[in-house]
């Protein structure tokens, strides 16, 4: 699923965002080429050996191939986040007579101001997401049988991961937010719901309903001065609001406001789950507390939700620009007729629901089956992600994971 959606990505920049591609291509194009060369090929080249080559190459080379796939994935995240960060906080460029971004300093382009923060935040998010999935599956099988050895190991490892990574993630998120305040203040204003400037310290709005017409947050529940404390580390620091930003440069506040709160809320829920598991573990009841296991199942898919909410926050918060402050989204479009774009969008939505829906169904069915065999040489069904058709199984009609 990753391969095929990746191919789509590399072509849609051109099909739907051709003006953006022409203008920003000289700067971000080479970064994406590096992603293909240093990451995609590495993943794809060794994936076949990882999935089907264990018997042919032996355990140590198989381990090497697996490590190469993992390394390729990390390289992929690095390059694509560099590209996205450059679109958020462009650096190291000039603009030539054709209106193209012209590379001046590659070091400054790759390591643009928001890149290190975004990279750390996203990689930690990926680890948290997988920890929650593994924890949820472990919890499910512990509910059925708390003596299940592999399920215990899954659950224990996942909970350790949460305990260690969630606090780091909250810290990384805080740094990322401060970096955003410095480079994209309008985004932070939208995240915080600060329509008005606060010269004597800004409140933290916990909840409320953004009212774009009246430019205020209705029914706001707020804690005085806390926003200044978080963002400026000073109780009384002044913070500007969206009243200082021209209307045509404002991001859509309501979407950013809500998606940010979803992400933060889930982040603290993860922290809570980790803390709960730690308390139970210290009393030796990690595998006994059925409500903990149920909570882990409920949190199983929440990593994906948090990641999506975070991306919505940062991408919608960048609006109305594709390259922040420099190139408007409305000026980036391909000269494709609206009906063609609408048709392709609808078809993609339909196909993705169908294809990824089927994939999700198969994955859930696999997770629902008893936890996989510890010995890879057993013939009762593979544990893997993409594939080859097994011809001879012990039971030729067996469907793995069913």
């Amino acid at each position, binding site marked *: 699923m990753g391969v095929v959606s990746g191919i789509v990505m*590399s072509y849609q*920049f051109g099909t739907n965002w051709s003006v953006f591609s022409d203008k920003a291509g000289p700067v971000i*194009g080479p970064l994406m080429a590096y992603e293909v060369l240093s990451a995609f090929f590495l993943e*794809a080249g060794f994936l*076949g050996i990882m999935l089907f080559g264990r018997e042919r190459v032996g355990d140590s080379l198989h381990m090497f191939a697996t490590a190469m796939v993992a390394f390729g994935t990390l390289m992929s995240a690095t390059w694509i986040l560099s590209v996205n960060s450059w679109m958020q906080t462009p650096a190291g460029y000039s603009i030539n007579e054709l209106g193209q971004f012209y590379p001046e300093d590659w070091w400054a382009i790759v390591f643009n101001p928001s890149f290190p923060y975004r990279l750390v935040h996203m990689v930690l998010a990926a680890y948290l997401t997988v920890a929650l999935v593994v924890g949820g599956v472990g919890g499910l099988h512990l509910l059925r049988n708390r003596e299940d050895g592999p399920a215990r190991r899954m659950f224990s490892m996942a909970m350790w991961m949460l305990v260690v990574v969630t606090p780091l993630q909250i810290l990384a998120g805080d740094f990322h937010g401060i970096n955003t305040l410095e480079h994209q203040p309008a985004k932070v204003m939208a995240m915080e719901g600060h329509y008005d400037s606060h010269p004597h310290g800004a409140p933290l709005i916990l909840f409320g309903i953004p009212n774009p017409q009246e430019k205020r947050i209705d029914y706001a529940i707020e804690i005085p001065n806390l926003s200044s404390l978080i963002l400026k580390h000073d109780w009384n620091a002044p913070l500007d609001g969206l009243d200082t930003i021209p209307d045509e440069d404002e991001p859509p506040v309501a979407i950013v406001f809500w998606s940010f709160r979803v992400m933060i809320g889930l982040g603290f829920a993860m922290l809570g789950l980790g803390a709960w598991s730690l308390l139970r573990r210290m009393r030796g009841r990690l595998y006994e507390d059925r409500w903990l296991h149920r909570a882990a199942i409920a949190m199983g898919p929440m990593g994906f939700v948090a990641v999506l909410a975070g991306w919505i926050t940062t991408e919608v918060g960048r609006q109305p620009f594709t390259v922040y402050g420099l190139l408007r989204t409305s000026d980036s479009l391909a*000269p494709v007729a609206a009906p063609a774009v609408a048709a392709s969008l609808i078809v993609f939505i339909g196909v993705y629901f169908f294809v990824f829906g089927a994939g999700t169904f198969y994955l859930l069915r696999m997770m629902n089956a008893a936890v996989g065999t510890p010995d890879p040489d057993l013939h009762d069904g593979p544990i893997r992600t993409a594939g080859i058709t097994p011809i001879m199984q012990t039971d030729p009609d067996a469907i793995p994971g069913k």
Partner: protein
Amino acid sequence: MFELSFIWAGIIAFAVLTYVILDGFDLGAGILFPLAEGEREKAMMMNSIAPIWDGNETWLVLGGGGLFAVFPLAYAVIMPALYMPIILMLLALIFRGVAFEYRWRTARWKPVWDVAFFGGSIVAAFMQGIALGALVQGIEVADRAYAGGWWDWLSVFSLLTGVAVIVGYALLGSTWIILKTEGPLQRRMQNHAWYLGAATLFFIGIVSILTPFQDPVYFQRWLNLPGSILSVLMPGAVIAAAWALFTGLNAGKDAQPFLASLTIFVLCFIGIGISFYPNIVPPGLTIKEAAAPDESLWFALVGTLVLVPMILVYTAYAYWVFRGKIDPEEGYH
């Protein structure tokens, strides 16, 4: 004269050619999939490409990503011009790609994913052929953007190249399966390859004869000296490769038909290159005009010269690991 953009045009052409011959044979295996008799043959055909199709398709990503990186203007013009064929190709590749995994996750839906595999393969091939034909016919550019209509890509010529690519990929696929299998499946593929080879030559002939009439520049190039020498040499080389294909098939050779088919594809690709040069998007956008600034070309070139040889080495290694005939008894362990 040293011109960085020409080096890059060569690299992109290499990436696209590598894509065409590598994904060509695995798409071809998908196109021939309905001809498999029984689950066992289906599994053999799929297993022969399962470990490598992913790497093969990555060359398509490099073709697109590389074009974006070093010829952003060409990328920005070609993609909207070929909007519909490109989108349909992408959708087809999605169905085909997931079929590898999904078809054996389910008994009830297996026929659905079999159709997805075959349909995805044939539609992707058809759209690639249409895109090629439309590109040969030329793309209207004004003011650094595509200036044509939404159905410009559709013509008798582009439909013809679409069918030609399906037939050509099927030839590559059949000769690949000859290389990778034994027994009845191999024998039937030898038979198919014979007809597919003849059909491929027929389409190459038709497209070659029609191409000079798509643009006066092509006509000038192929029918005046020194180009007319090539007009004799290129068909000669294709005939030699075809001879190697058919004698290899008749003699029951394993590798010769596949290598001969690859050679035919390489020759056709060179022919297209001769027509296009020095344009990257016919009829009027040159390689030099479409290139990104030299700073971008240099930056990308350094890594490419280091990484592409490494990619070729480990890709070759991956093929080496999975060398030899498919063992029909081999399952997944």
